[in-house]
Structures are given as structure tokens and as C-alpha cells.
């Protein structure tokens, strides 16, 4: 991976650990939702984050977006952005004021997106509150920009007059996406932004995201459990399992030739129209992140598990120029 003058990544996450510290019936325990994650996102790249429900995708994304609230706590590691030479390290001693970079440089579309919209104010006001001062246009022109942007998301301009509760779930979700993209930020973090949309609208939204991303060469982390969306949108894909990144590489390569048994399962279990027989499910359930299994966290469910998997934690190792995997069975020389 040493190409000499390769441009610096826009985001570098190193050995990041973020735990929920909970106290239940007098017992303290840590939910290790993000455990030692290292990744980077390049300029002009869409990075997809995949993995089953509750594996820690949202937690990782919150940590990257600087949206940390107790009981979530960053235990170690770093998150560093590079906005055209302006370095911002989120968990440094002299951490920056996030308000400074929100919306314009970095925008975050939260899962269940409702929360950015003030329930007591019309949608129009949310746009004015968050986006107006970043767009540098007179109000009338600004609203024209907003209306045009909404149309790309298959939303009629009338939604601006509505209160959030008057919109359907999918309409609210699109309003949140519009809000996060109208300022054309350099880095967009989107957590399951299309899960509540019909497939036609979903396609429109994904196309819009892709277009905005191309027009300004921004970077994007796109979180979804839907592998079909990843397949159609993302340049690179990271797969999480139980708080850890277990595989990462070019999307097409991973879909064609997954190296981690868990990734292979994810891809094999994709439902398709026309299925009438149940797909084979994985044995067992995802581990509790308060008490994850030793060694490889996937070993209790892994068809390839070996002795070493129960004792040692496989590290992410390169298996191709841009392809990493954390599995003993996929790493030559590690089998025993």
C-alpha cells in the first residue's frame, strides 16, 4: 500500500475503543460495542459499514461523528479528520468545538433520524436553523435551493410547511437526509438512512447521495445491514461482528470472494424475490457485548472454528492490496 504520494485519508480511525458503561442492579459492566477498530476513509470514497443488528455499527459511527453521550465513553484510540489540510482530532486533549465543523464539513444522519427535527417547528424552520448560514444566499434563493434538493429526494416542496409528525416515516427520513446534504459537506456519515423507504424512492435517494458525493468529491461512511445497498453504492466495505471489524476490502471483491466465514454467511443469506424456502440461518445468536467470548468472537458460531480460535483473537491482516481480514482460517500460516 505504499504508493508514495497517495493523498492522505480524510478520516483515520486508530485502535478505537468505545464502551457503554452501565450499572445494573449494583453491578458495573462495560458493553464493548466498539473494540479496537482501525480504518481509514479516502477522499472521494464511499465506505460501507455492514454487519448484523447490534454488532456496534451505530456506536462506531457515533464515536466517529463525535456524538458521544454517557454512558458511552471512548476508552482509547483516535479519530482524526483531515479537511483539506485542516486536521481535527476528536478525542485529543485539546479537542475542537464540534459546532465549528458540523453541517459544513461533517454531517451526520442519525439512525431513526427523527431527532434532528424539532417536533414543534415546521420543517422549513429546521432548514433555516441548520443550513441557512452555511449556504450564503438570500433567503428566497436559499429556499429555492432547498426545494430543488427536496425534489431530488422525491419530496414535494409542501413538506416544508408540515410539522414532523405530519410526515410518514420515510418522508421524515428523507427530510433528515436533505438537511444533512443540502450544505454539501465534505464528509457525510449516514446510519441506515434508507431502511424505511420503498425501493423506488430508495434508489432515488442513493442516486442523489452518489451524485452529491461525486459533484463535490466528498467522502461518505454509509452504514446499513442491507448488503444489496452496499453492493450498489459503496466503493469499499467494512464488515463488523460483535464490536470488531472482521473484514474490509473493495465491495465487489468482498461480494465475489468473501474471506471471513461471517461475511460469507451474510452474502449467502441475502433474500431474493422468489425465495419460498427458508435460507439457512447461522447457528446460535450474536454474543453479548458485555461478556463476549474469548478468542475470535465468532468462534461459537463458526463452521470453520479451530482450537486456536477459542484462545487467540485474530488480528486484521492483509490478504490483498486493499483487502484485510481477521480470521485464522483465511490467514496463510496461521492454521493449526
Amino acid at each position: 500500500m505504499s504508493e508514495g504520494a497517495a493523498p492522505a485519508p480524510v478520516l483515520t480511525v486508530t485502535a478505537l475503543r468505545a464502551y457503554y458503561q452501565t450499572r445494573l442492579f449494583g453491578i458495573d459492566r462495560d458493553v464493548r460495542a466498539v473494540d479496537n477498530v482501525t480504518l481509514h476513509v479516502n477522499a472521494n470514497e464511499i465506505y460501507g459499514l455492514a454487519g448484523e443488528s447490534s454488532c456496534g455499527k451505530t456506536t462506531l459511527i457515533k464515536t466517529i461523528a463525535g456524538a458521544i453521550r454517557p454512558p458511552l465513553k471512548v476508552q482509547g484510540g483516535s479519530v482524526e479528520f483531515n479537511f483539506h489540510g485542516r486536521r481535527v482530532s476528536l478525542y485529543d486533549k485539546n479537542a475542537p468545538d464540534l459546532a465549528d465543523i458540523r453541517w459544513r464539513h461533517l454531517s451526520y444522519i442519525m439512525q431513526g433520524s427523527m431527532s434532528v427535527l424539532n417536533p414543534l417547528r415546521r420543517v422549513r424552520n429546521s432548514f433555516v436553523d441548520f443550513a441557512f448560514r452555511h449556504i450564503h444566499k438570500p433567503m428566497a434563493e436559499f429556499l429555492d435551493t432547498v426545494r430543488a434538493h427536496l425534489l431530488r429526494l422525491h419530496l414535494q416542496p409542501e413538506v416544508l410547511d408540515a410539522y414532523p409528525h405530519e410526515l410518514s416515516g420515510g418522508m421524515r427520513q428523507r427530510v433528515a437526509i436533505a438537511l444533512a446534504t443540502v450544505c454539501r459537506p465534505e464528509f457525510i456519515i449516514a446510519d441506515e438512512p434508507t431502511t424505511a423507504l420503498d425501493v423506488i424512492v430508495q434508489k432515488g435517494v442513493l442516486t442523489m447521495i452518489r451524485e452529491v458525493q461525486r459533484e463535490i468529491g466528498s467522502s461518505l461512511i454509509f452504514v446499513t445491514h442491507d448488503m444489496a445497498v452496499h453492493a450498489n453504492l459503496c466503493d469499499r466495505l467494512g464488515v463488523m461482528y460483535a464490536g470488531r471489524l472482521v473484514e474490509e476490502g473493495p465491495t465487489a471483491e468482498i461480494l465475489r470472494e468473501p474471506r471471513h466465514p461471517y461475511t460469507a454467511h451474510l452474502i449467502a443469506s441475502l433474500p431474493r424475490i422468489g425465495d419460498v424456502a427458508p435460507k439457512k440461518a447461522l447457528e446460535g445468536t450474536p454474543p453479548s457485548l458485555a461478556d463476549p467470548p474469548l478468542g475470535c468472537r465468532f468462534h461459537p458460531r463458526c463452521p470453520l472454528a479451530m482450537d486456536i480460535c477459542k484462545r487467540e483473537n485474530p488480528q486484521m491482516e492483509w490478504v490483498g492490496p486493499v483487502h484485510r481480514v481477521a480470521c485464522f482460517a483465511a490467514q496463510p500460516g496461521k492454521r493449526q
Partner: protein
Amino acid sequence: MTAPLLELSDVAKVYSIGGALFGHRLRAVDGISFEVGRDGPEIFAIIGESGSGKTTLARMILNTAQPSAGKILFRGADLAGMRDRLGFMRQVQPIFQNPFEAFNPLKRVDRYLYMTARRFAGAATQAEAGDHADRALRKVGLSLAEIRGRFPHELSGGQLQRVAIARALIASPALIVADEPVSMVDASLRMSIVNLFKTLRDDLGVSIVYITHDLATAYYISDRIVIMRKGRAVEAGPARAILDNPQHPYSIELKNAVLSPDAAARLYGNRPIME
């Protein structure tokens, strides 16, 4: 001939949006008719455009919103004149679209289960309520031990949604109205939840109104289907026949828009492209 479990005739719902003063009126649901469970328990899917009135329809079936026109009958009785509210709620249970909105963030999630067990399943003691809760949770792949004492924000979307389904099961309902119950969960969990719906229908005789954007699971579990757009039904009938061979242009467009996971890997080398 007995009455079907649920019967909608020419149901409409008009909203005014944006406040009384500047508002405009909108026919969110515009003349919908269908029956569920005439010939025994069935899974009835509603799919269609975002904003086409599916959730509004669900609210009217649950009797939490009233139709502006038309009639909804449950076991032959008009919901408009319904007196035994509790009895109705025991028989018709909801599962909502967004689990983050369905639970009060300040309330521990197991409370909901205990409350439902006391209210609808006749649990007299805390221990009994716990038993009911645990049994229901196990049907959805969780257990009481895993969620006891937790607040909604301590669970992931998928976990919360399974709790919501477990809660609905405690009452042993005849009809479950599930509004996008699987949109927040991954493919394998999704399959296990819809398989659970099948079991409910086949073994417990529960009918299910299944609202979804996921055509694959609609195909996989539904007996009949209606496709909605702008408040109206554009096509309705046996699920597999319709999804195999849609006739209405909107239904065809919908089916064609389903993203194929295979496309990228096969066609576009390392840089997949949305078309």
C-alpha cells in the same frame, strides 16, 4: 358464512397538513377496501410508496385513528361503535414502524412486557408476568435475562424491534398489525422474524397485516398482497402471482427497482455504480 376477521370497505382518511391556517388538505387514504382472514388465518401484506397511507391505514385498523369515510369491521362489528376497548386491544396488537419511537426512552423495556402480561394475559404476580415475558422473548430469539432492567437506548434497533414483537405476542392476539417490523433488522434476523410470523399463522391461527418495503419477505410469507400508491390500491391479489407477474405500471416499476446484490459483484469491477 362467518364474517371475516377484518373487513375494510371504501375507507378514506383526510388530513390537513401544516396547521389549520396555512394548511392544505390531503387524502392520505383514498377508498381502500379489503378483507383479512375470511378463509382462516392469513398473512396480508401491504406494500407501496413511502407516504402512500400504509401507516395511516394501520392506525385506523388499530382504532387509534378514525376513518373520514368508509367502514372498518372487526369480526363483523364496526370499530366506530366499539365499546369493549380492552377486549379489542387484546385481540388486535400492533408492532410499530420505528422501535425508537415506540418505546418511552425513560422507561425500562421489560416494564412494557410486565404491563402487557398483567393487562392482557392475566398475570397476577410479578413472577408470572416474568414468565410470560420470558416465553414471548424466547420466541423472538431473546430472553428476559438479556433485557431485564435495560432502557431502550441500551438496545439496538433490531433488539428493540424483537422486544416489540414479543410484547405483542403476550396478549395471544387474533390479529397483529405489523408496520415495517423488519426494516431495522438484518437479513438473517429478518428471516427469523418472518418465519416467526408464519409459525404464528400456522400454529396459533394468528392473522397478520404485514406492512413492508421488503418485496422478498412479502413474497416469502404473504398469502395476499395489496400495492398502494398515493392513498389508493393499484393492484391486489395473491402475493406470489402478483409479485411474479405484476400488471400495474407502478407495481412493475417497484419490482424492477429492487436492488440486486449480485449486480455489483458481477458487472462493475471494483467500483460499483448506481444506475
